[in-house]
């Protein structure tokens, strides 16, 4: 028995999927507090199913999954996990300001009858400062660039002060200038000790942010280690693929 805080995530032989059919299975993964883990893999590899499974959006089919020391099925306080989805529209078919969208991140943490208070407004302000959008708080979200919208979603996840943040393709479809700002935001969060699980297929945009890489292919974990090791893994893979083709 160790007295240290339990790992943020602890999966053993876990499977996730939809309608009872597994998309990803036999996952063993432990993420410690403060780690920034990139989840890589081609489209359709099951990486999104894995992270959405932790959020209760896809089905946990088998194996053991502990989130923040609690079995996934019994995790009632979902605000301890922040979620940054891959999104193009932020407010459906209506206009909304940056503040209005970010404020929705606080709703699950307070009873339905209580309106937002001073502390809530302060939390929104701080979350916007953390992603560098404080001066755009009253802007209509539809007028923002792709990278700025992604940062609105990060602020919405941050505002409830979660212990771990799960991001789905935060840099996809974001122009180069915004990508730099976005990488800076992620770097600041990582240095501040926020645990992050980032699904991506653009590792270059996250250089210097990521502590560890987990690669998923055809529903299995095919690599788990530090970024340097991953480069070697890819080189080995490319050599063996080249030999196979020759």
């Amino acid at each position: 028995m160790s007295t240290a805080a339990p790992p943020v995530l602890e999966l053993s032989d876990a499977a996730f999927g939809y309608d009872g059919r597994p998309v990803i299975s036999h996952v063993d993964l432990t993420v410690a507090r403060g780690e920034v883990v990139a989840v890589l893999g081609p489209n359709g590899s099951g990486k999104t199913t894995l992270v959405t499974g932790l959020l209760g959006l896809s089905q946990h089919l088998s194996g053991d999954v502990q989130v923040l020391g609690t079995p996934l099925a019994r995790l009632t306080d979902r605000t301890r996990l922040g979620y940054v989805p891959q999104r193009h529209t932020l407010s459906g078919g209506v206009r909304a300001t940056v503040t209005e969208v970010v404020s929705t991140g606080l709703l699950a943490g307070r009873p339905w009858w209580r309106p937002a208070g001073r502390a809530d407004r302060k939390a929104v302000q701080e979350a916007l400062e953390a992603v560098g959008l404080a001066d755009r708080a009253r802007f209509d979200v539809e007028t923002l660039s792709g990278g700025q919208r992604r940062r609105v979603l990060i602020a919405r996840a941050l505002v409830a002060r979660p212990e771990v943040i799960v991001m789905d393709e935060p840099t996809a479809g974001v122009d180069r200038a915004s990508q730099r700002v976005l990488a800076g935001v992620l770097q600041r969060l990582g240095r501040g000790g926020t645990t992050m699980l980032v699904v991506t297929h653009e590792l270059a945009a996250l250089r210097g942010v990521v502590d560890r890489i987990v690669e998923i292919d055809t529903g299995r974990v095919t690599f788990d280690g530090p970024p340097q090791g991953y480069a070697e893994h890819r080189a080995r893979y490319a050599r063996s693929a080249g030999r196979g083709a020759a």
Partner: protein
Amino acid sequence: MSEMLALDFMRNALLAALVVGLAAPMVGIFLVQRRLSLIGDGLGHVALAGVAIGVITDSAPVWTALVAAVLGGAAIELVRARGRTSGDIALALMFYGGIAAGVVVINKVDGTQTANLTGYLFGAITTTTRADVVLFAVLCAVVVVVVTVLRQRLFAVAGDEEYARASGLPVLALNIALSILTAVTIVVAMRVIGLLLISALMIIPNAAAQQVSRSFRAASWWGVVLGIVSSVGGVVTSYYADTASGGTVVLLAIGIFVAAALAGAARRAIAGSRHRHAERHPHEHGPGCGHEAVTHGDHVDYLHDGHRHAAHEGHYDEHSADPPDAAHTLEDREEVPR
């Protein structure tokens, strides 16, 4: 005007129009947000089956319509939550089955005289009694209170259902709540503008409000104001012009929408010609971007190669060093030449 107000049935009609004009857009904005503008139409069809049950059983059609619409509303959400493609067909069966059964039953019972049916389909506001008005006001008050309390949650779920679920909000319960609110609003509005036109008063004032507002909060208020103007104005117009009240209300709402769209376009054109955009601007200014930040009125300018740049919508504006005048605010920026 005083002549009209002296008439008992017109006083009832105007009060009914007022409560409907208030409640319908309040609920409708979430349907616009979910891009389910036509769901109210479908529930109106289901409500007609409820009216028919009331006619057969000789009970008050308002109550039977309310029960049918509420059950229909809950069923829609349960079907949608299962996410099957057959769900779409199920909804079509429910909506068209509802209106077909309603038409057949009401015609059968009333014989060839179809005034009653027409009244439900297109509104018969002048037949509203004092008791009806009291009932509508009570139902409307319930709708207003529930929407006001749940407003932010309904906004969150309608804006991003997946995120709302991940964050732990009771998504299905909130969607069913919205569906039931829609059903109640439809039954309240049934006498005023009719089951076939009801959806229009939920949607069109909100569509108009979107043209002139820049936040959800402002758009909600504008939706309610324009809804009340449409419904009360439509009933007054129909009295003087001797036209059908339901159709008049909807035509007035459409007129307001066109005016709002023109006003919105004109304002954007004026704002565009009055201020100067910075040229192609790939860099994003922000805290620590490397450029000096200068407070300028209610916002911050960044000194960029001798220019002052301020973020505005999707671009940067050129600002001058002069103190900003009263009109120079973040909301509506007027530019002074450099």
